[in-house]
């Protein structure tokens, strides 16, 4: 009847990794809704957008970007270490990644506080603040500041939320798996899967940094 057929057991990728990739595909769509709204709103905005670097602190964010790239590298180093069987190195790099991520979140919170103090809030520009004066003087376009605030805080806020989730799950893996020595050269799915998530968060930040802070 039939010729011999292959058993066809999927994509030759273990479940957790495939599951993570599938999850990331849905994350792409989630960020597409947020970033897409920003692009569509900015494209159809009633007037000029605020110039980059006027409202947002570029120096501190550039450093933050660098930090996130570093943590992505340290994550991949942790993965490389464990797949070479070097568990100690893996622990070190994983800890570095957690620290990098935590610093990123900390700096972002600091940045938010600073922005809110200057009068930049999700609703736009707060009355009577430093930025409100700049709008009054015409240094900032008042017509689009509302959109600016809405999109900026939503996009970066949800990115920050993702970073926080990543830090928490890495910390969890570090404490429950890495420290007790449950990862081996053969079995380290957790590191690879969380790594994928972490790099994705980094990737989203790379896009966000360019379109929110630099353009």
């Amino acid at each position: 009847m039939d010729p011999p057929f292959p058993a066809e057991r999927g994509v030759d990728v273990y479940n957790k990794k495939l599951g993570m990739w599938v999850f990331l595909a849905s994350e792409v769509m989630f960020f597409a809704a947020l970033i897409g709204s920003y692009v569509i709103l900015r494209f159809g905005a009633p007037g000029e957008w605020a110039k980059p670097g006027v409202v947002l602190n570029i120096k501190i964010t550039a450093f933050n970007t660098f930090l996130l790239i570093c943590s992505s590298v340290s994550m991949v180093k942790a993965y490389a270490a464990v797949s070479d069987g070097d568990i100690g190195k893996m622990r070190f790099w994983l800890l570095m990644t957690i620290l990098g991520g935590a610093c990123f979140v900390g700096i972002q919170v600091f940045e938010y506080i600073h922005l809110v103090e200057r009068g930049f809030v999700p609703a736009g520009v707060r009355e009577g603040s430093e930025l409100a004066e700049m709008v009054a003087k015409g240094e900032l376009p008042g017509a689009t500041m509302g959109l600016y605030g809405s999109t900026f805080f939503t996009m970066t806020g949800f990115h920050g939320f993702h970073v926080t989730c990543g830090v928490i799950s890495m910390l969890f893996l570090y404490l429950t798996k890495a420290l007790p020595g449950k990862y081996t050269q053969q079995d380290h799915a957790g590191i690879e899967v969380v790594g994928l998530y972490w790099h994705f968060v980094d990737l989203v930040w790379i896009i966000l940094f360019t379109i929110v802070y630099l353009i």
Partner: protein
Amino acid sequence: MATTTHKHPPYIMIWIYLAVLTALELGLAFEFARNWTFGLKLTLLMILAIWKALLVALYFMHLKFEKWNLRLVALFPLPLVLILLAAGMSEHIW
């Protein structure tokens, strides 16, 4: 995973690569391109951003070393994103 012993990609080199591209972006946005048109800057910055994103996806997320069926999972949403953007923006192109 595990025992597949392809040599690890040069992660440190990619790190430097990413840092340089970021510096280039910052320079483009604030330093040497002040008089360039917005459209040109936008295009160059987007190219740089996508370049960086590709580096992360290909090397850090190992897409370069995966089979096509897994790459497909990663690529599948991208056309949908473009469709959404195109339709949303076409409201204003007329």
